[in-house]
């Protein structure tokens, strides 16, 4: 039986890696998650045959309740709210890893020292990922909508982490009483909260990705504690993949990971000097529609504002109308458009936009000089030319979409405010830019109606 269980775990680990590999192309991605799902089901079922298992009723109840609740949540969540949902489920995984550590550390019989060390490390990491992800969820969901920054915060946080490690040290040294285990978990839990609270909404994707990697690591450590190879492999693969993904995201936003975690930027509102003294110029919808209808090449730059207004379906309708008139339409996606890399692609895919119309930053930027009209919908910081020119700007150096190089720019924007990073945008006051103020869905709808009339 032992060998049968190990064999199934091996197959599961193989399916996880194969599944992640399949996800590297849009064509095979859906098959990939299904294979990984098969692996998960197999591993879960075979675990009921684990030698010495009891409490079967409790296990079944917990699986059914936990699985049922999260299934309903996952099916109901709007695509725009996906990042916080991923954060929530990730936090659950971190909590589960910490729970395994707690059960093992509270056991009466003494454990080998290497097992205790990894159990403690997994507990701390899992707990931080748990409470940190919950805060990330609460922030993105709007439950917590202010940042908590105070002097000496980093010092306090480091002290808290040090305290957690000291308690862990006592447990490792063999003073593993219930008290120290409780203190270890409490300090790690608090540390996760405290280190996430000061981080602003704009940086949250990086943090979620980091916690995803951390949960993977915690799962791998607890896998060692339990002698479970599937957990070690799957956890480590996610830990490594998540770390790489975190780096890619931080790079796309021109922020170092240390900066994200310890500086509290993204929370502050800093006014830049760009575009000062110049006025934004509005344009009527019918004029804008004529510009679009008689253009030969149009690039649409969607931002999170489009998604909030649920305008992506209307944008696709407008695109189809323009294509019928022979206009070449492309979508330009900044790596951090939406709330995290790839989020905007998901939102456009939901509206039915085929992925071969969608271009990455590197592929589309050379197109802008030959573009007749760029349509910026609810995007701001990712098209701000200050990132190229203004060394004083907080977003200086971030790669941007060079919309300002196209012949005309139409910006659909709800109001005159600044973007997520709180920086003024010189694009909006540029000579070739015209503004369409209003709700994105409403404006695009009117544009489509006008184009239809022409």
């Amino acid at each position, binding site marked *: 039986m032992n060998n049968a269980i190990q064999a199934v775990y091996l197959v599961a680990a193989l399916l996880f890696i194969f599944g992640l590999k399949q996800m*590297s192309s849009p064509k095979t991605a859906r098959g990939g998650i299904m294979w990984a*799902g098969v692996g998960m089901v197999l591993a879960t079922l075979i675990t009921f045959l684990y030698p010495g298992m009891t409490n079967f009723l409790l296990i079944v109840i917990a699986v059914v309740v936990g*699985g049922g609740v999260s299934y309903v949540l996952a099916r109901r969540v709007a695509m725009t709210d996906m990042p916080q949902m*991923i954060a929530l489920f990730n936090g659950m*995984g971190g909590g589960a890893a*910490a729970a395994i550590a707690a059960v093992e550390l*509270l056991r009466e019989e003494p454990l080998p020292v290497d097992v205790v060390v990894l159990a403690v490390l997994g507990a701390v990491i899992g707990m931080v990922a748990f409470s940190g992800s919950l805060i990330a969820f609460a922030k993105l969901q709007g439950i917590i909508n202010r940042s908590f920054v105070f002097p000496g915060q980093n010092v306090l946080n480091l002290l808290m982490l040090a305290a957690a490690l000291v308690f862990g040290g006592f447990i490792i040294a063999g003073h593993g009483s219930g008290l120290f285990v409780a203190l270890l978990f409490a300090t790690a839990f608090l540390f996760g909260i405290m280190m996430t609270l000061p981080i602003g909404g704009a940086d949250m994707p990086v943090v979620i990705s980091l916690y995803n990697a951390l949960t993977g690591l915690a799962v791998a450590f607890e896998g060692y504690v339990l002698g*479970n190879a599937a957990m070690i492999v799957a956890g480590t693969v996610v830990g490594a993949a998540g770390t790489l993904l975190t780096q890619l995201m931080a790079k796309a936003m021109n922020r170092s990971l240390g900066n994200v975690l310890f500086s509290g930027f993204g929370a502050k509102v800093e006014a830049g000097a760009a575009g000062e003294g110049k006025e934004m110029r509005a344009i009527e919808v019918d004029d804008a529609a004529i510009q679009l209808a008689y253009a030969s090449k149009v690039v649409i730059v969607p931002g999170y504002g489009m998604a909030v207004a649920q305008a992506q379906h209307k944008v696709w309708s407008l695109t189809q109308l323009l294509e019928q008139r022979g206009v070449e339409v492309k979508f330009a996606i900044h790596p951090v458009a939406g709330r995290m890399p790839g989020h905007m692609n998901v939102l456009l895919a939901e509206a039915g936009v*085929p992925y071969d119309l969608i271009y990455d930053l590197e592929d589309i930027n050379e197109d802008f000089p030959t573009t007749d009209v760029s349509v910026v919908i609810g995007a701001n910081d990712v098209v701000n030319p200050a990132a190229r020119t203004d060394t004083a700007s907080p977003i200086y150096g971030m790669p941007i979409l060079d919309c300002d190089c196209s012949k005309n720019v139409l910006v659909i924007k709800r109001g005159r405010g600044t973007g997520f990073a709180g920086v003024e945008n010189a694009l909006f006051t540029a000579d070739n830019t015209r503004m369409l103020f209003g709700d994105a869905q409403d404006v695009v709808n009117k544009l489509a109606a006008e184009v239809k009339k022409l």
Partner: protein
Amino acid sequence: MSEITGFTALYIFLLAAFTGYAVISRVPVILHTPLMSGSNFVHGIVLVGAMVALGVAETTLEQIIGFVGVLLGAMNAVGGYAVTERMLEMFKPAKEAGEAAGAPSSEGREGGNE
């Protein structure tokens, strides 16, 4: 269960880490969000460990913590799968998407996720 000790575990860590790195480094940006979600699902394997922890729990306290662990692990695995699957089922190339948009249902889908 079979013992995985010291250096054997280190070798597993090492190879799995390189595997994770290599697998992800070829993923296009458009799939980053589903991929983060997919890797989030994969560490849902923690469910298996939590089941073992609860399965061998003896005291009431161990049972309670183990129960919470299985509950959270199941949420991670099932929720992670459901959101990833939902995102990936929408990725379609131009031909298929065109057909889907031609059908009357494309308008009706709007606001379906409120």
